[in-house]
């Protein structure tokens, strides 16, 4: 179980606001976070990862993460802009996290990147880079996988492919996952729970059917 209580003053698109989130997430679940730009979604993930300070209480499997450095948090993070180590090959990006060749081989096979293992990441396409970023995030077998709009920079074909791979990895590793998404279709296909954030507050929280099917207005506005 992951318990999160975060309070932080932010400058949103409509002026100052308080990010005020209090929620529990079941082990192994896949949660999508939706909401307008500037509603505090990315900050929520960054505070969870320890990359930003906030008044927070984060408990993962009974252990408090409040004073833990990002290095000790066992987090996998997929950034929107990939953030790959550009001086390294695909395989080196993975092995830099953990020297576990079996795991890197398995991840590259799952995401069909084996043929690109020795390629420098600078030479890859956007979709390939995001798949490497996903594999890298899984290399330390994280307790929580955080993804900040992993699909938004990709065209539809590539988005569908990555979506499948995210789903495959989640089935295989059963990692508790939080994904920010603007795409209602992807959120619906991947998640079992959806949160909608507005001005730093959770305004909708429920199963994908409750949030997306019944709330047609939200579905179409996203």
């Amino acid at each position, binding site marked *: 179980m992951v318990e999160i209580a975060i309070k932080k003053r932010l400058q949103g698109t409509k002026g100052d606001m308080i990010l005020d989130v209090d929620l529990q997430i079941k082990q192994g679940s896949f949660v999508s976070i939706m909401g307008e730009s500037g509603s505090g979604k990315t900050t929520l993930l960054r505070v969870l*990862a320890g*990359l930003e300070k906030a008044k927070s209480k984060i408990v993962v499997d009974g252990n408090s993460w409040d004073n833990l*450095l*990002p*290095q*000790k*948090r066992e*987090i*996998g*993070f997929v*950034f929107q*802009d990939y*953030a*790959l*180590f*550009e*001086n390294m090959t695909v395989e080196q990006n993975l092995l*830099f*996290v*953990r020297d576990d060749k079996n795991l890197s081989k398995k991840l590259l096979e799952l995401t069909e990147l084996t043929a690109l293992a020795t390629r420098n990441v*600078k*030479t890859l396409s956007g979709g390939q880079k995001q798949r490497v970023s996903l594999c*890298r995030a899984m*290399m*330390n077998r994280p307790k929580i996988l955080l993804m900040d709009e992993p699909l938004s920079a990709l065209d539809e074909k590539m988005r569908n492919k990555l979506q499948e791979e995210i789903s495959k990895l989640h089935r295989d590793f059963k990692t508790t996952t939080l994904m920010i998404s603007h795409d209602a279709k992807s959120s619906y296909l991947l998640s079992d729970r959806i949160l909608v954030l507005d001005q730093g507050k959770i305004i909708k929280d429920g199963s994908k059917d409750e949030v997306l099917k019944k709330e047609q207005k939200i579905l179409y506005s996203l």
Partner: protein
Amino acid sequence: MDMTPFVISFKLAGITTIILFIIALPFSWWLSQTNSKSKPFLEAMTALPIVLPPSVLGFYILMILSPNSFFGNFLQEHFGVELLFSFTGLVVASSFYSLPFMVQPLQNGFESLNRHMLEASYLSGKSKLQTIWYVALPNMKPALSTALIITFAHTVGEFGVVLMVGGSIPNETKVASVAIYDMVEVMDYTKAYIYSGIMVGMSFFVLLLVYIFNHSQKKVGIL
């Protein structure tokens, strides 16, 4: 022809570059990451040697290292070290003089890096030191080469501060630039031409190397 002044120049530049790299690496990293109010003050202090006349900087260093000053006296009494008119004194003076040429390119290089890339390294369990060494520096090779080579070349070309702090002691503090000045003073223009020609050739070669390297790095980035 006596090549000793060139040897001293290169020895001085090499040692200064190594010392400055060790000092400037954590300092420029800190400058690139901090939002501290002291940052503009420290940046201005670091950049001072660029705008100050070398004689002003040389004068202050001369005063600070002099055995009559508190610092100079302390070094002499407790360690038996006299820095004025010695090679070690030249290294100290050059380290002050060339500091901005190491700090500024490194700071710019660190600031140009994708912040998420550094954060990805932290989330991979890597410390700041490991992140600087394995992720930051390899991804800013042009800035790194500019810092190292320009610091080296600038120290080789130093004149005013060196003359004031080190004088012109043969085989000790007489670097190439000071040797040329001495030759002109005694109107030995032939030797002055040869020494100056060597300096021009070497400086051009060093700069050419920097530009070729940086250009090749940009091409790799485009591929």
